């Protein structure tokens, strides 16, 4: 599998099968998924809805445990949610509405026991400045736009300086222009500190732009279809096919197979 040979991966997902219960069904979300994330990777989980990519991210977050296989971070198996893996969600209500922008970040630092008092406040401001929201540090979330809220969530996640940042379609609820801007900002921020990101999306352009490595999942249940490298430029391969076209073909081939199976 991918990664520099010899170096132990930061996140190691081995043969992970995830299941969850709905009212009437036991749903298998992913089936024996393997991947490795190296330090400073921008690792993207890409697939159509129903491929279990969000469930997989939640499992890495520690919110559910695999029925088969193992997930380990820095060699230690993941048992429960913890501040070494910070989630950034799609929903705007991930910010605590009763706390200001600054308090939201400080809350994260203090609750997790990372920092206290003055140090926490300083660290919070440092990251709020990084996402250019210092003017809004004392505003409540409901007074901010969707893009600004997501920037606060990003600042809160980065301020924790986690081993890995888990992003669950963080820009999907934004309008197209804001989304584009946020994607660029995320890349700029990454250039600054080179944090490790595990990023879930169903958008091929977003995956190409954000990721340096893209894991393609097929739906029902999610299985690994391919793992591709991306340089952000949608470069053509040796056969002259663009990366986006290859991804299209891989996802589309699935659909045709499925439709054929249904006929």
């Amino acid at each position, binding site marked *: 599998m991918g990664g520099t040979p010899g170096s132990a991966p930061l996140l190691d997902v081995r043969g992970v099968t995830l299941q969850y219960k709905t009212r009437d069904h036991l749903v298998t979300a992913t089936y024996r998924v393997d991947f490795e994330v190296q330090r400073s990777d921008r690792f993207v989980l890409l697939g159509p809805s129903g491929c279990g990519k969000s469930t997989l991210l*939640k499992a890495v*977050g520690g*919110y559910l445990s695999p029925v088969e296989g193992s997930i380990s971070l820095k060699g230690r198996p993941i048992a*429960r*949610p*913890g*501040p070494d*893996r*910070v*989630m950034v*969600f799609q*929903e705007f*209500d*991930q910010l*605590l*509405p*009763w706390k200001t922008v600054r308090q939201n970040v400080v*809350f*994260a630092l203090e*609750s*997790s*026991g990372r920092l206290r008092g003055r140090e926490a406040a300083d660290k919070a401001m440092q990251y709020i400045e990084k996402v250019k929201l210092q003017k809004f540090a004392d505003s*409540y*979330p*409901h*007074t901010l736009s969707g893009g600004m809220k997501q920037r606060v969530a990003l600042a809160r996640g980065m301020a*924790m300086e986690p081993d890995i940042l888990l992003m669950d379609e963080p820009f999907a609820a934004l309008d197209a222009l804001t989304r584009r801007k946020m994607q660029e900002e995320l890349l700029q921020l990454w250039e600054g500190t080179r944090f490790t990101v595990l990023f879930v999306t169903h958008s091929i352009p977003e995956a190409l732009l954000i990721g340096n490595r893209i894991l393609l999942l097929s739906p029902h249940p999610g299985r690994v279809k391919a793992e591709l490298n991306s340089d952000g430029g949608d470069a053509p391969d040796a056969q002259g096919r663009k990366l986006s076209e290859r991804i299209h073909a891989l996802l589309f081939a699935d659909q045709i197979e499925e439709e054929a199976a249904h006929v």
Partner: protein
Amino acid sequence: MSDAREQRPEFVRKSLETAFGVVEKPLTPWERLYNIGALRKSVLLVALAAIWQLYAQQLDNPLLFPTFGATLQALWEGIVSGGLLGKAWTSIKVLLMGYGAGLAIAAVLTAAAITSRVGTDLLETLTSMFNPLPAIALLPLALIWFGLGNGSIVFVLIHSVLWAVALNTHSGFLAVSSTLRMVGRNYGLTGLSYVAKILIPAAFPSILSGLKIGWAFAWRTLIAAELVFGVSSGSGGLGWYIYENKNELEIPSVFAGLFTVILVGLAVENLVFRNIELRTVRRWGMQH
């Protein structure tokens, strides 16, 4: 058809028009006055008082329906000489005891309900059984159990507060979004700190409306209980004041007593709860 479409020229404006006047214009004084809720309500109250006064004057039967003026006078006399304020304070003291005890029990019940399934079942069963039961219906029983005195009244007060508060708090907890829950657990919050730092503030709009409903229920129950068994609470409260004056046919004082009940209710609603609301849920944008 396609010709007509191709004929339309494109254009780009070099400079934009600026002769549109002001973008923001202050509201007229009248509009600004109309925007003050307190003023609108005061005008309504004055109008209602005027109607009351006119109707009572025309009826001219102070035994049935005293005028607004006579009621105000009785209220003033009651405050100055009749110990109306003392009576109101007696009522409020008992009320606070019952309210406080009710809240404490509600907290225990909801805590049980969020930590275990049996607790949830217990809370749901108990609320559906007791919530529809009027508190005052328990008073005869309370008198047998706790005798004449504050004990019985506090018991029925607890009953009137407990279910409304527990039900609202619990449904507030259930409505906390899974995202917020996950955020709380992500930052390592568990157990009590999770409840205190995530669940309670996130459910605060529901909790607050539970507190308001509980307050209103308790206030009503208290006055009704005092009307029936007022003398039991030693010095007697507002309900007793109303009952006593009715017996003496001091109808303006009966009205003054009722007026005090309304005033205390309004004061708590508009000073206490309103302030809590402004400082919390409204400021946080959780309620508009």
